[in-house]
């Protein structure tokens, strides 16, 4: 298994290099950090030269990623012009802020989705199942920006003492006590949970229904296995196998920052930073966030594959 993981990690290196090269070229080609300066030349020649140097604009577009790679290998991901901080600092601070809502949203969302899936799958095409199906379609149909605004208006405005509406804050979320933090986390996390559960419970329901219709479930019942054990032991482990990949991708996506939700709640996570970096043509920050999210996606895919092998004895790592 160790050899397998090593092989997988090594195999992702060329993938990341190609992805980053393309992103670098595309962002560089579609933005012009010099736009403002061109208008005031030659009065602001110094600033112009500074930008050229910062972004290596004197290097050919197709070769420019290599200078970035060179410094990235040394641990220096460059400096964000728009936020005035080193990219690594931003990734660290914002990453932790994002994780504060992503981790609870993922844990609670996945568990709730799983419980609802099992509830539905045990009584498919009954009133309870139809009710949940209807609710999940509503959750599905609401884009997250609508959901976030609705929740914000319903809860934060109506119950200002509970959730409050806070001024924008770009620093790291520290120095607050746990209760205060939990209060701030609640609404953005709830938004992510509702949107996530709506989708996940559909997949979970389908997987569980399919599993409960398998022959080996009938065998278990024919042995005299109580229905609870049939569901929680015989069916669940099999039904989880396809869900593991879904969860891994969900979690890596959440940790990469929820652009819309975090922006609406003014949550200083990676999402709003990503939005700013694109708007300001902040190449280094765009690349920093892309590499962060690419590494997360690859890493959690690997985690999913390892979990696969643990859940399903038919899969072997060689």
């Amino acid at each position, binding site marked *: 298994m160790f050899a397998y993981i090593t092989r997988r990690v090594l195999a992702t290196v060329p993938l990341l290099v190609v992805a980053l090269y393309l992103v670098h070229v595309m962002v560089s080609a579609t933005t012009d950090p010099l736009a403002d300066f061109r208008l005031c030349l030659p009065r602001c020649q110094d600033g112009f030269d500074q930008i050229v140097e910062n972004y290596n604009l004197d290097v050919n577009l197709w070769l420019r990623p290599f200078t970035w790679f060179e410094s990235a290998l040394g641990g220096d991901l460059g400096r964000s012009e728009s936020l005035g901080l080193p990219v690594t600092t931003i990734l660290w601070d914002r990453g932790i802020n994002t994780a504060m809502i992503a981790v609870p949203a993922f844990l609670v969302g996945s568990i709730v989705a799983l419980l609802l899936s099992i509830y539905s799958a045990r009584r498919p095409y009954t009133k309870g199942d139809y009710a949940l199906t209807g609710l999940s379609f509503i959750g599905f149909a609401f884009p997250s920006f609508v959901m976030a605004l609705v929740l914000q208006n319903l809860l934060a405005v109506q119950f200002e003492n509970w959730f409050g509406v806070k001024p924008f804050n770009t620093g790291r979320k520290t120095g607050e006590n746990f209760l205060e933090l939990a209060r701030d986390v609640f609404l953005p996390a709830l938004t992510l949970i509702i949107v996530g559960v709506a989708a996940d419970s559909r997949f979970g329901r389908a997987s569980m229904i399919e599993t409960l219709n398998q022959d080996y479930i*009938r065998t278990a019942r024919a*042995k005299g296995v109580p229905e609870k054990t049939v569901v929680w032991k015989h069916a669940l482990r099999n039904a989880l196998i396809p869900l593991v990949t879904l969860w891994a991708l969900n979690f890596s996506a959440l940790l990469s920052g929820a652009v819309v939700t975090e922006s609406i709640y003014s949550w200083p996570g990676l999402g709003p930073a990503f939005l700013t970096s694109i708007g300001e043509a902040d190449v280094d920050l765009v690349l920093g966030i892309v590499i962060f999210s690419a590494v997360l996606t690859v890493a959690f895919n690997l985690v999913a594959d390892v979990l696969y092998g643990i859940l399903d*004895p038919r899969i072997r790592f060689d």
Partner: protein
Amino acid sequence: MTAPLLKVDHLTVGFPSKAGVVGAVTDVSFEIHPGEVLAVVGESGSGKSVTALAVMRLHSKSTHISGSVMFNDTDLLALPEDQMRAIRGRDIAMIFQDPMTALNPVFTVGMQIVEAILLHHHDMTKQKAWERAVELLDMVGVPEPRRRAAQYPHEFSGGMRQRAMIAMAISNDPKLLIADEPTTALDVTVQAQVMEVLHEVKRATGSAIMLITHDLGLVAGSADRVQVMYASRLFETGSIDEIFYESRNPYTRALLDSIPDLEGTKDELHPIPGNPPSLLRPPAGCPFRPRCSMAIELCREQTPALIQIANSHASRCHRADELAVLAAGAPA
């Protein structure tokens, strides 16, 4: 004759669908005596498996079931679920058609047998149950049973999986073993081995067997009595000799006639023309009439009743009496 182990009376099973209720089993009555092998024969969809699943009460809740299923004087259909569960796997055990899908892929074969044992022996230790599982695997002819018990189903071949299924089914010495097409999914060479194991098991445990199959060849060598089903109904029932040599039913005869002859004395195959009727809207009269070479006007108007011919022999045909004359040289 001893009291029957299983006495099924007027069993009717229907599956509700959007278009109406599909009558999968219609008014079926039969008995199985202790230690007896009853073969239930018929085409796909004739109601064989549905009958077995109804005896085990393994249908979904929406299924309409009426009649009675008396097992040792207990009506299984009236039993509360927890008491029925205690009977499943202990008194009545079942072997399914496809061993490739009937075992849970994420648990070892040994664990699945151990589970079956522990469910009905609450005071047994896990180690003892494991020893018993190894013994059972050995008994059904799984080589190196100790090593094999720790393996997963995907590491077993089809024949070995079916042996493991049998080991699991007999782990609590059931009084009745229902084998639903136990050899259909297997290679011909393996089929004989699995049947041999079933006979071995019967000799060792003395349990009765309800053998569901569409393979009449299998029936001839292993059953005491045969029951032929067609379009949800019992069409003929009798001893092996009565069914194979003195059949009083055109459907049974057509079925016997359609068996390919490996010795090559038959010049051509004689399949039964047409298809079984829809169970959603069965035709009036005898359900076999459209395919029957002996059909008369009466068959169109009236569904024939099951006519008693001899002590153990009954046939559902308006012309059952006339068929006696033709019986001498059968099968044709």
